[in-house]
């Protein structure tokens, strides 16, 4: 079979290069709440709390993708207009945009996907980075082989699914395939998947891509509970599992110099605290449980940039100075010649860029697949006609039989 041979050849010649074993150089966070409406206040509070934490630990806003399906701060039922709290003490306003000094807030919240934009499709597009060319860069997950990614999801779920906005759901298998595509394109170095929902641990069973650590709030057939309600807000303000995550992060991660390991963080979620069996999946991570537990919490929750302090720059500065001076002189000397040459010199890139633009509109989103769906419609109509015909024929036959 020639087709099979081709596939085999592709497999052979284009062997996947292993993920770089070097350290990560950037941190990204995807924080998703999947439920809307006032009584789900706690899910948005969960997500905003995580947002505050990762921002506090140094992940810049353009590397945090925040998906909020509803706006609790401006909900008409909210007695505290413009505020979202995750604790009945109401000491910390999660929706504070007044700046860092007053409340130790974080100076503004950048919601990337809001309301009806929070859909399964958009979430999968986000992970796989399959967007029409018009999609803004700030709303994309532009990770590379050296990015560590934190994914936090909260909402209502069940066995192997998580509900999005009461209208659709994402299954464990969809997530697993999305991660596989990220892995194939080397879009992450290490990935920490966290989920706070009922039967959360079933969400990560289907995962199969290396480099993933997954943790959930409750085992199969268990519910995840809310922590407490605020009588003045009128609803539960935070979920148990997230509450204790935050408690740990606020207590032990006060600065970017904190050396706290993932193992300690996971062990903090005991049954006594969470009232359900929080689970962790280590087996996909290279090095297994030991290596995963030894990872620093800041490798996922913070943006700790590797730093190379330069030594002996003095001598190399002198080198550069000489080089650059020489370059300047040369540039001045050949300026005349260069004038007419420069255009030619630049042309290859210019044409490439021009081509990119030209191909832009072509690549815009075409979800409908006009011709395809038309064919399908015809096929559907034809089958209906055939079935109807069969029915008519049979009833005619019956009548005949009856007459006989």
């Amino acid at each position, binding site marked *: 079979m020639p087709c099979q041979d081709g596939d085999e050849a592709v497999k*052979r010649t284009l062997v996947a290069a292993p993920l770089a074993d070097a350290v990560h150089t950037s941190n990204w966070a995807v924080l998703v709440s999947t439920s809307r409406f006032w009584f789900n206040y706690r899910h948005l509070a969960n997500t905003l709390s995580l947002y505050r934490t990762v921002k*506090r630990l140094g992940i810049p806003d353009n590397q945090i993708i925040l998906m909020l399906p509803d706006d609790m701060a401006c909900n008409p039922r909210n007695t505290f207009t413009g505020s979202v709290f995750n604790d009945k003490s109401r000491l910390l306003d999660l929706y504070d945009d007044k700046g860092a000094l007053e409340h130790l807030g974080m100076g503004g919240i950048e919601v990337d996907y809001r309301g009806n934009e929070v859909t399964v499709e958009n979430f999968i597009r986000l992970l796989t980075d*399959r967007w029409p060319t018009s999609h803004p860069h700030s709303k994309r997950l532009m990770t590379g082989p050296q990015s560590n990614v934190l994914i936090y999801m909260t909402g209502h779920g069940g066995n192997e699914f998580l509900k999005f906005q009461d209208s659709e759901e994402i299954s464990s298998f969809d997530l697993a395939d999305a991660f596989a*595509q990220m892995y194939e394109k080397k879009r992450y170095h290490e990935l920490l998947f966290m989920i706070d929902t009922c039967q959360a641990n079933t969400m990560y069973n289907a995962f199969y891509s290396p480099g993933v650590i997954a943790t959930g709030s409750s085992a199969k057939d268990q519910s995840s509970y809310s922590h407490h309600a605020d009588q003045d807000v009128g609803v539960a303000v935070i979920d148990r599992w997230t509450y204790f995550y935050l408690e740990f992060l606020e207590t032990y991660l006060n600065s970017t110099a904190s050396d706290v390991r993932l193992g300690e963080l996971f062990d903090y979620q005991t049954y006594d605290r969470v009232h359900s069996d929080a689970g962790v999946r280590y087996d996909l991570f290279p090095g297994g449980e030991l290596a995963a537990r030894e990872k620093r919490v800041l490798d996922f929750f913070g*943006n700790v940039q590797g730093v190379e302090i330069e030594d002996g720059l003095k001598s190399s500065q002198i080198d*550069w100075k000489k080089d650059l001076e020489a370059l300047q002189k040369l540039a001045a000397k050949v300026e005349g010649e260069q004038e007419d040459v420069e255009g030619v*010199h630049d042309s290859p890139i210019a044409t*490439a860029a021009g081509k990119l633009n030209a191909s832009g509109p072509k690549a815009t989103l075409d979800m409908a697949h006009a011709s395809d769906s038309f064919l399908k419609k015809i096929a559907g109509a034809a089958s209906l006609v055939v079935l109807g015909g069969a029915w008519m024929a049979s009833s005619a036959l019956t009548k005949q039989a009856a007459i006989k």
Partner: protein
Amino acid sequence: MPPAEKPKTACKLEYPVYVRLIVESDPTQAESLAAQVEGLLRADDGFALYDFHVTPDASNATIAFDALRTVQHTDPASPEHKESALTVNVKADSSVKSTETTLWSWVPLLEVRHNPGDAEDTATLAVFISQVIHRIFTEEQNTISYLLEETAFTSGRPIKQPSPEIKAELDAKKTRAFKYASTYHLTFSLFTSSALPASWDVEEALESTIQPLINRFSGISHFTVDTQVQLYASFSPSIAGPQYDDTSREWQLQRSDLSGFINAAEWPLSPGIGAGPTINFVLFVPSQDQSPLVIAENGGNSWLIPQWGGVQILNPAGKQPDKLTAHHLEPVMLTFADQLSTLLGLPSSPPSLALRIQSLTRERATSIIVSASSTLGALARLSLKLKSIAIPKSVANSVDETLHHLDQACRALHAGQFHKALENARTAEDEAEEAFFEPSMVGQVYFPDEHKVAVYVPLLGPMGVPLVMVLVKELRAFIKRLREKKSQKAKDE
């Protein structure tokens, strides 16, 4: 769709290197010397990837030097163009004791001066020159073997792999340098703790240091430059902050503070400039009461953040100036130039900038060919694994384009046209990415069986029940008729 021409055999990466040899002292000697150097270089098994061509050039050296300068500016895309990688000029100089070499920085020229009084024969000189050339290409050779390691491009060829120490160094280099992009955005920011200095002569400083450098890189990538000034920039709340050291009378930053030094929440460093990565260069001027501010570890004032940019602290002598002049900025910009070249992946040797940029062109072309192929591989594996994903025709077209351009890139490499190879590899990479990230290849690929039942039963159920009932009825009637016929027959008989 017409099938694109497919390469018959897999691409065998090979790098022809053209060396011109000028023997100023004795042009008649050039031919034999060239042949010997070429022979020695080719016999070197460390260089299996290279194909050295050494051609004698009998023309007068000064003319040759002028010609060399124009070589820099001939159109690299023209088909006949063979980029002469290096010119070797052998001079007689009675003032030198033993043979000496000088490598020019801004043109790829190696000057060899030997004493004519020495009874050195051509063979010794040839060995000497070949060793120098060997040293020049060592780092590049290591990098390229490292890039090709564990890819199909090396299958069946004995390519010497670098030693573990060199490999660790190359790992670090890979972590440090940005991934190749056709456009980089450079952002130079001045952050000051207080109100002063309020401005800087950045344009002048950039013009004299950064601009000539990025002009040199223009054959590889494009650059845009932005600058900004931010006053009253505060430290991030999550770092301990500078501590005063009594003995040295300096404010010191610990290493752990450096990693959180960039106050991501408040400093406007978001790279929203468009396609392509942003390289950040931050100059921080501490307030008067926290000056001088240094790094505790080595008393230095600059550090590099891999794949992000460079940071420097400037402690102006005396009172805070209102304005940072070009004079203040000169050492700063030199450090930034050094950091920029590191972040772009420029090799650290040989000492000639021209040769290093050539090396970078070859390295980049190689790395994009490898990454475009790996994207294709990922797409192929994906299409085999996720069977239900719909793949539109545009993806097939892009894949064909990719293969075509990869083939072209490979040919250009063989012909020694490295800029053309780079350009083709870049197009191949863009096409491969476009194919992989095709927006319509999204969808929920998994639907559990319960879903399917729930969707189809309400549709097919009402339709199916009468059909089945009629079928049963008809069958019974048929059997009845059969029986009647049989009994009829029996009666008849």
